[in-house]
C-alpha cells in the first residue's frame, strides 16, 4: 500500500513541478516504485521537466473518461523503469476531472506503487481540490518571500481543515548570500511563520534552469540543489539526515578538513 504525497504551494512559480520531478526521481533512485501525476490540466509541465513530452499519447483525462486503460497512459522514465508519469491533458481544463475520480485513480495506483506524487496546480480552486483529494501527505513548497509564504500559509490552513495527516515544508530558492546581508528571510523565520515540520531547504541554483530545459532533473547530482533534493527524498523515507550547510562556496582546504572531521 503506497503513500500518496501532494506537492502544493498556492503561489505559482515557486518550484512545485521541479520539486515533484526531483523528489520522484530521487525516490526512484532509492529503489522505490514511484508514479507522478501531473494534475495541472491545461497547463502541463511535468512531462517537459522530465523530458518525456514526446511520449505522451494518452493522459489523465483520457484515463478518467475511460478512453484508455490506466496502464496505457503511464509513461516509463528513460533511465528508471520504476518511475512512471501520468501526464495531464493540455487541451482541457480543470473541470474535466473531479475529486472523486482522482481519489479512485489514486487508490488504484497506490496498490502497485510505493509512492504516488501529485503535482498540484497553483491556486486553490478546482485543480487544487482535485490534487489534494486523494493525498495522505503534503509537501508545501515555498520560497523565502512574503508573498509565497502568505499563500503557503493559506494552503496549510486549507490542508489542515481538510484533515491532511502530515504536512511538511520545503523552502526553495534560498540564497545564503542574501540571507547573510539580511535581505532575505531566514529559514527559521519561515518556519516560525508557517509552524509546520521542515523537511528540506533547497538553495537557489542556476543548474536547476539548465536541468529543467534539458528535461533531466538534477537530484543526486553534485550540485547543492541536487543534494538537497536527495536529502528530502531520504527524509520522506524516514531517514534522519542532517540539514546540509548551504554556504556553498567553501575553500578547497575547508572541504578537505570537513572530510577528515567525519
Amino acid at each position: 500500500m503506497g503513500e500518496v504525497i501532494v506537492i502544493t504551494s498556492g503561489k505559482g512559480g515557486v518550484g512545485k513541478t521541479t520539486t515533484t520531478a526531483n523528489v520522484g526521481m530521487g525516490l526512484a533512485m532509492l529503489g522505490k516504485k514511484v508514479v507522478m501525476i501531473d494534475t495541472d490540466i491545461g497547463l502541463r509541465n511535468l512531462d517537459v521537466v522530465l523530458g518525456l513530452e514526446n511520449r505522451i499519447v494518452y493522459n489523465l483525462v483520457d484515463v478518467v473518461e475511460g478512453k484508455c486503460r490506466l496502464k496505457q497512459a503511464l509513461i516509463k522514465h528513460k533511465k528508471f523503469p520504476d518511475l512512471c508519469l501520468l501526464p495531464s491533458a493540455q487541451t482541457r481544463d480543470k473541470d474535466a476531472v473531479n475529486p472523486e475520480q482522482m481519489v479512485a485513480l489514486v487508490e488504484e495506483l497506490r496498490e502497485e506503487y510505493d509512492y504516488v506524487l501529485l503535482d498540484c496546480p497553483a491556486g486553490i480552486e478546482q485543480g487544487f481540490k482535485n490534487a489534494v483529494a486523494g493525498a495522505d501527505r503534503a509537501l508545501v513548497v515555498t520560497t523565502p518571500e512574503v508573498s509565497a509564504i502568505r499563500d503557503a500559509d493559506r494552503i496549510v490552513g486549507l490542508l489542515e481543515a481538510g484533515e491532511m495527516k502530515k504536512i511538511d515544508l520545503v523552502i526553495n530558492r534560498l540564497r545564503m548570500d542574501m540571507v547573510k546581508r539580511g535581505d532575505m528571510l531566514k529559514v527559521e523565520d519561515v518556519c516560525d511563520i508557517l509552524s509546520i515540520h521542515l523537511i528540506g531547504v533547497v538553495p537557489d541554483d542556476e543548474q536547476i534552469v539548465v536541468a529543467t530545459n534539458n528535461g533531466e532533473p538534477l537530484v543526486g547530482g553534485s550540485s547543492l540543489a541536487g543534494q538537497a533534493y536527495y536529502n528530502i527524498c531520504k527524509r520522506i523515507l524516514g531517514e534522519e539526515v542532517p540539514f546540509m550547510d548551504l554556504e556553498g562556496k567553501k575553500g578547497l582546504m575547508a572541504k578537505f578538513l570537513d572530510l577528515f572531521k567525519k
Partner: protein
Amino acid sequence: MTKEVIIKSNKYGMELILDDKLPFPELLDIIRDRFQESGNFFKNAKMAVSFKGRSLTGEEELSIVDAIMENSPIQIVSIMDLAGVQEERMKERLDAFQESQGGSVAQKSSARGTGSASRQSGAGQKTQGQSGSGRKAEAVPGQQANFQNGFYKGNLRSGQVLECPESVTLIGDVNPGARIESAGNVVILGALKGTACAGSGGDNSCFIFALDMQPIQLQIGEYIAKSPDREKESRHLFKREKAAPAAYNPQIAVARRGTIYIEPMTKGCLDNL
C-alpha cells in the same frame, strides 16, 4: 422555484442549467412552464442559448429550443455547445448572425421547419480553445474566420487543437503542446513543433508536410512516432543560437513499411506519394 431548470441570462444569450437525473420529457415540461411564466420578460429577443449540467443529444437540444420558441417570444438563433459559455462568445455569435441578416430569414424559416436552430460550425471544422469541452464540436468564432476551404491561417498555440475532416493546410506555426489533426493530409506552411496527426480515420497513405519539421509527435494512420530523445538541445535555445538554419528545410513525413519516415521534400518524393 424548481431547481431542475435554472435559467441564467446575460445581454446576448442565456444558459440553461439542467438537472441530469430527471427523465427528459419531465424536464421538457418544466422548461415549457418556466418559459410560459417568464418568457414575456424577454420580449422578442434574439438570443444564443447554451446548456449545462446535463449532456443532451442533438434531438433533445432541438426539442428544448422548440419548447422555448413555442412558449415565449424569444428567438433562439444559435446553440452554444460549451459548458460555461462566456458572454463575449454569445455576443460574437449574435453579431455574426446579425451580419448575415440576409440569410437570417431563410435560416429562421428552416429553423422552424426542421425545428432546429443553426449550429454554426464552419465547414465541419472543429477548433477547441483551451476551455474546449471536447464533447462536441466547438467552433470558436474568432478562429472560425481564419478557417476557409481547408486553409487555416494563424498559429496554433499550446493547448489548441485543430481538427478537420479532410486535408488541411495551415499557414502559420504549430507550437509545442498544440495539435493538428486531419483525416486526410496535413500541410503546414510554417514550423511544426507540436503534434500532427494525418489520416486520423486510419488511412496510412496520408502525409504530413512542414516547412520546418521539429515535431514532438507524428501520427499517420495507425502509426505513431515520437521525436528522438537525444535531440533535446535542438529544441531549446542552444542550437538555434549556435547554428541557426540558413533557410527552411521543408520535409515530408510518410508511413511506409510500418514506420514513419521524415525525408527532405524533393521531386522524387512526389513520385512515391
